[in-house]
């Protein structure tokens, strides 16, 4: 059931698709994002609650024309310079944005997973955001209360990273799980990268399992969340997030970094070797 990540991206992610790569601080699918950059997908609508370093890379490499999001920053560090350059200066391309709150995005993903047309929440009240985004008011037929309605998120492709899969392609993940399950269930097609393939999944307290038949492709990508982390495998590379601020600040340095470590490598193994070689040279 396992396929090479290159094949999964080539077959399932097309130019112009609506693509969601999720992972809330934990289990961010960096290896899959890098493969999208290598295969030079264009005109994507990218969805993500917290676009961080991987979306900075995708936007800076010109893969997207639209971003749907609720918080776009480098957590604990500051700005995403490539995201800002795209919004403020249309570099490398003009970027349309559709901005929500976390609560709104979460409700929209849950609605998408349930195949409902919209999510409902007590939110988007007052302030300037409602006039700038896709939200409407619905009236509760039972109590008359007015509530916010957000259109369901239904990505063409949902991509997540998980700890492990078995030989049949059943996926198991644990720790902070964000909106990953909803992303897979809301999407028309889905790709899961994993740290490890095992003969059989051992039950784990608090773990979620996605059965093989709701996932289109499972690809092995050990270390594939870096600089994010995989609970039980490796820790978050906090120093990388700090370093990214300087790497991404100027266009030329950003492009040079991407050419060397992403375009210049074939897969997650070579990416890690490339980073290690640079660290040794310093």
């Amino acid at each position, binding site marked *: 059931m396992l396929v090479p990540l290159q094949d999964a991206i080539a077959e399932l992610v097309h130019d112009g698709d609506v693509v969601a790569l999720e992972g*809330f*601080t*934990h289990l961010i699918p960096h290896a899959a994002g890098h493969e999208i950059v290598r295969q030079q997908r264009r005109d994507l609508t990218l969805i993500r*609650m*917290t676009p961080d370093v991987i979306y900075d890379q995708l936007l800076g490499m010109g893969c997207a024309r639209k971003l749907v*999001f*609720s*918080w*776009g*920053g480098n*957590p*604990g560090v500051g*700005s*995403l310079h490539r*995201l*800002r350059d795209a*919004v*403020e200066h249309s570099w490398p391309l003009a970027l349309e944005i559709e*901005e929500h*709150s*976390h*609560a709104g995005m*979460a*409700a929209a*993903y*849950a609605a998408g997973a349930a195949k409902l047309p919209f999510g409902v*929440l*007590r*939110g*988007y*009240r*007052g*302030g*300037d*955001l409602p006039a*700038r985004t896709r939200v409407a008011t619905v009236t509760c037929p039972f109590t008359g209360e007015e509530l916010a309605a957000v259109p369901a998120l239904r990505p063409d492709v949902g991509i997540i990273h998980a700890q492990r899969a078995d030989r049949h392609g059943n996926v198991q993940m644990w*720790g*902070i*799980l*964000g*909106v990953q*399950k*909803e992303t897979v269930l809301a999407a028309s097609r889905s790709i899961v990268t994993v740290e490890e393939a095992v003969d059989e999944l051992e039950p784990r307290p*608090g773990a979620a399992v996605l059965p093989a038949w709701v996932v289109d492709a499972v690809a092995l990508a050990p270390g594939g969340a870096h600089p994010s*982390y995989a*609970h039980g495998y490796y*820790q*978050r590379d*906090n*120093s990388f*997030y*700090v370093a990214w601020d300087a790497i991404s600040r100027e266009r030329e340095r950003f492009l040079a970094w991407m050419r060397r470590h992403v375009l210049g490598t074939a897969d997650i193994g070579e990416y890690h070797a490339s980073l290690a070689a640079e660290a040794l040279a310093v």
Partner: protein
Amino acid sequence: MSSDGSAPAVSADEMMAVEAARRLHDGTVCFVGIGLPSLAANLARRTHAPGCVLVYESGTIGAKPSELPLSIGDGELADTADAVVSVPEMFAYWLQGRRIDVGFLGAAQIDRYGNLNSTVIGDYAHPEVRLPGGGGAPEIALGVDDVFVLLRQSPRAFVERLDFTTSLGDNVRVVVTDLGVLEPRERELTLVAVHPGVDVDKARAATGWNLAVADDVRETEPPTDLELRALRALRTKGHEHG
């Protein structure tokens, strides 16, 4: 400024964290963001309020980190939490379900009513500075009983008119700054305390509107040695990573 004079002077961040921590109590359920709010809530838990419940929006409820986390989703938060829930559950069942007492917010701009901007500086469609955006803030601001704002005071941040209203100030109970403490009096944020060594004029000069000042402005209590020791022990990890 510690009583024995041996410790380094109290920094503005430390003063803000201590003032915020003192407002949390045993049993307070507190929605925490990264940075100063996390520092304040963990300080409260390490000193006078060991039963303070820390909720991070990544889905960790009752997290008890031994060191200050650097992101809202650090593994240690999940390992030490009473429960780890998904993000849709966090916002629907726990925040919207009104199970959280206090929410901390920061921002780039605040107005005299406690409304906050964390979205853009300049025009939304053509911003001078695109900020990260609201994230959890719009629903936190209205979904908890008490909003605490932590923000350094300057005319650029404390403005007459926000460039964009990200969240509403209806539930803002206190704004702790590097200069003092503001609380709403008849809706308008009013200076009620200044930190040691700060005078009222300095706070006025750092505010972009005509700052209301309480008749009985007090001086905040400097951090105790216990508070400072707990605070500095928590920050060790953060310093290692600059």
